[in-house]
């Protein structure tokens, strides 16, 4: 477990939770990234707050990432065709299932939604099995 970073993980998580609390207490909205992104590509009166949230997210990430003297590693594990397949699956799947790691995982579980619990359990289980198959059965990567 030499890559384990409990302090920054907890602190970063707390910031994400604070973001969810601000969006809920301020605008009454759930901080689900796939939902906010989905609404951004739909016609409607609520695109303004969604666009601001996404731009803020990029700005916040940029400020921290480029603020490090040595920007932390961002390493992808698979080739372009697999990145495209994975991207399509994540985009379509999160819309079909009405949420992702933030909407179902963080916000849904925090507000005690059973639907989000089932969704989160399902996508974590499938992701664990997928990584197991790729790494230890097919022998790809790592």
């Amino acid at each position, binding site marked *: 477990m030499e*890559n384990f970073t409990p302090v*920054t*993980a*907890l*602190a970063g998580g707390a*910031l*994400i*939770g*604070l973001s*969810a*609390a*601000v*969006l*809920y*207490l*301020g*605008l*009454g909205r*759930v*901080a689900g*990234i796939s939902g906010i992104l989905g609404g951004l*590509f739909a016609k409607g009166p609520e695109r303004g*707050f969604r666009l601001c*949230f*996404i*731009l*803020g*997210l*990029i*700005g*916040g990430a*940029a*400020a921290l*990432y480029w603020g490090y003297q040595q920007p932390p590693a961002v*390493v992808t*594990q698979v080739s372009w065709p697999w990145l*495209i*397949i*994975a*991207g399509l*699956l*994540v985009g*379509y799947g*999160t*819309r079909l*299932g*009405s949420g*992702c*790691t933030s909407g179902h995982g963080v916000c849904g*579980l*925090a*507000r005690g939604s059973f*639907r989000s619990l089932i*969704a989160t359990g399902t996508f*974590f289980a*499938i992701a*664990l099995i*997928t990584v197991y198959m*790729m*790494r230890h059965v097919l022998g790809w990567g790592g």
Partner: protein
Amino acid sequence: MRTLITATVSGILFGAGLALSGMMNPAKVIGFLDLFGDWDPSLAFVMAGAMIVAMIGYRIGRHRSQPAFDSTFHLPTRTAIDRPLILGAVLFGLGWGIAGLCPGPAIAALVTGSTDILIFTAAMILGIVGFRVIGPH
């Protein structure tokens, strides 16, 4: 205006949290999902930290009749455990496992300038738009 400022502040906190936690790095996410490799529990700590703080926020919200800058709370109303929920979660889990990227980190990691991230995120947005066109409504 207050709506847009609140959304921007919330977005900044989210992006900073992703960058600080290391979750922008697909290798670190895979490090959590790979239980039988060199396991890295960090992602569970990110989820726990986020949930505890979010839960406090939702608790405070219970004592309010409306949010600060809107006339009503907009919480999801569906409760059914139905086919789209499960099938969507399965497809998402597959994609997440293959690439180690979910929507928040994919958008945040665009700031690294990585072509791989750009390709994934473009495909992800195509999937989101594709759902609007060919998905069930």
